[in-house]
């Protein structure tokens, strides 16, 4: 079973490139959500300030 994970002599090259790719994808998937929430909160804060000043 472990043989198919071995990738012969190139094991470290194959696995590191896949690992890097999926880290970048996961980072981006998390980051776009975080950024959206941040922008929403920023606008909300500003709108609330305006409301108080009115």
């Amino acid at each position, binding site marked *: 079973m472990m043989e198919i994970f071995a990738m012969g002599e190139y094991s470290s090259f194959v696995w*590191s490139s896949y690992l890097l790719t999926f880290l970048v994808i996961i980072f981006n998937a998390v980051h776009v959500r975080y950024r959206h929430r941040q*922008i929403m909160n920023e606008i*909300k804060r500003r709108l609330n300030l305006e409301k108080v000043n009115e």
Partner: protein
Amino acid sequence: MWKFLHKLASPPYFYVLAKKIIPWLSIFALGLITYGTISGLFFTPPDYQQGDAFRIIYVHVPAAYLSILAYMIMAISAGIGLIWRIKLSHAITASAAPLGAWFTFLALATGSIWGKPMWGTWWEWGDPRLTSELIMLFLYFGYIALRSAIDDTMKADRASAVLILVGVINVPIIHFSVEWWSSLHQGPTLIRQDGPTIDPTMLYPLLAMIIGFSLLFTALLLFRVRSEVLYRERRSRWVRNLLLPPVQSI
């Protein structure tokens, strides 16, 4: 058709529609990438020359493909923004830049990891494919830096759109670099006049990965454009109503 496009370019309509599309894109992307990864890593036979190292193709080619696709999307939307002054198109250009930069980085990094065992070097300055792809990474960085240096959004949109359009010259150079100059990098495998030169068992996972990555890219791009549109329209009535719903009086 024109009516629909017009409606689509309206920020509030786009904002709601994109939210509905993103989950579907993500599901299909996840399915294709899962299939491509599993069969690319475990079910396709090793290459007769490269052994298991060729499996890097399943992450390297989609990343490289997206690095160019993102640039083309930016160039087209920058052009539309400059000519017709459609607000949404500048938002798309600005949102695609960081994603394009990430996938360019990924293409360079996985290519480097692939190059070490196959060519005996991580990097070769004399190679036109490698160098032109690196120039594209700097074009993305330049675009992002230029935008952040200009406070006025409309001025930033126009100046950075010109930069992207000038940089388009690099795209055909990247594509044809492996044909015009002798290079360490191998020639085209998929897009060639006599058809793909890769066995179907290796081709299908690759196509799945390319389509899956493209769908994923589209989902990430739409997500970013939504944030960008919200920020750009922060003073408008629809954003106010969306974030601070008017209180119903009894």
